[in-house]
């Protein structure tokens, strides 16, 4: 008995999923949910989860309270002033359920498609050929600390040659990020050091670095090392339609 429940409970992705299951199981109309029955059964499941020591996600409890709330509203007599336009309180769960069902259907349809590397296969370039292709670099992950080290190195190199100037400069990280993206889109992947080739002042260096970090953070630039010794590579992540610039505007 218990094992049955365990199997059953595991397949529920969330409260909406459990609710749909109960609606199907009871063969009731989604537009006319017998709220008392469904609420009782829903709470039974939650109890079961507790008995089985399953961690009950807050989402399940929130739905439980919504159900109980609707149930109590259904028990109340019709509003005194006889307002007939009053919404059926059940709509609070019917609407999200319907919307969820739509996407569940779509998910089903997606999984029935001819999925690459499950149903259909395409040619793949063997790794040893890939190694020789210059734009298919083998990748080593780069950590934030490595980036900072690389930046420190550049600051160190440059600080001797950079003149101390006291002009007020207005480099905004956002503008710099756009600039960096423009350079990367135009020139393609480049080395970390190259990016800082043109910056003249320390503040500009710093803003460029901050802009780069932001770009990495939002996923517009990928960083990796081709080998352990080499300089860090920066690769723009641009889709075919070159939408990086648009993305940045939202950023």
């Amino acid at each position, binding site marked *: 008995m218990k094992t049955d429940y365990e199997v059953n409970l595991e397949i529920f992705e969330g409260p*909406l999923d459990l609710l749909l299951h109960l609606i199907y199981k009871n063969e009731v109309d989604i537009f006319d949910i017998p709220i008392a029955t469904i609420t009782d059964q829903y709470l039974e499941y939650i109890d079961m989860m507790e008995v089985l020591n399953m961690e009950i*996600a807050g989402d399940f409890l929130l739905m439980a309270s919504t159900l109980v709330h609707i149930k109590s509203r259904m028990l109340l007599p019709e509003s005194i002033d006889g307002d007939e336009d009053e919404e059926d309180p059940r709509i609070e769960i019917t609407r999200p359920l*319907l919307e969820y069902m*739509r996407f569940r259907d779509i998910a089903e349809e997606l999984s029935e*498609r001819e999925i690459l590397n499950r149903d*259909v296969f395409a040619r793949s370039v063997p790794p040893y050929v890939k190694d020789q292709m210059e734009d298919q670099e083998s990748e080593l992950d780069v950590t934030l600390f490595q980036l900072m080290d690389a930046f420190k190195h550049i600051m160190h190199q440059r600080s001797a040659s950079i003149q101390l100037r006291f002009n007020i400069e207005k480099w905004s990280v956002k503008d710099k990020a756009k600039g960096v993206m423009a350079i990367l889109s135009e020139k393609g992947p480049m080395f970390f050091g190259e990016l800082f080739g043109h910056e003249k002042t320390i503040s500009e260096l710093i803003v460029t670095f901050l802009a780069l970090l932001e770009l990495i953070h939002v996923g517009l630039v990928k960083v990796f090392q081709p080998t352990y010794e080499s300089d860090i590579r920066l690769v723009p992540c641009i889709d075919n339609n070159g939408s990086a610039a648009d993305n940045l505007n939202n950023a």
Partner: protein
Amino acid sequence: MPDELKSIIEALLFTSDRPLNAGEIHTWLPDETLSDVSNALKDIENEYNSMGRSFVLKEVALGYQFRTQSRYASYILRMLKTSPTRLSRAALETLAIISYKQPILRQEIERLRGVDAGGILRTLLEKSLIRIVGRKALPGRPLIYGTTQKFLEVFDLTDLESLPKLKEIKVLSPDSEET
């Protein structure tokens, strides 16, 4: 149309490990017109489809790619010694939501599925099926998600337009706007 052009394009498609589109092929064959390249692609597609071979030229992710017929999947998997692409129902539902509602915030995905989406989003990002397209100008600057080119490739979709149509919800929802 010269058969040589078709053969050249066929050779490129044969060697490529990703879908190629007419525009892209045109940049490598600047002496040809774009429409000749497009027509050649369609010709090759028709030829392979009528040949009854184990693979066809498929239009996918705004390009063309040679792909095997699905009935040979089990043999290929045996050879590759890999397990097939597998996505959980949660992942598929999340993908379904993102593909229709993009650009979309995590909060909205969670509202539609009624559960936390953090773990699934991470998995989908790792698999490059979704990407971060930016940040919304809201408190906390939440990330905005969208699907990728790879999503189209994996699910055999030409473009986002070719996604199955959403069924309308007409009932009792005067304020639920249809997109």
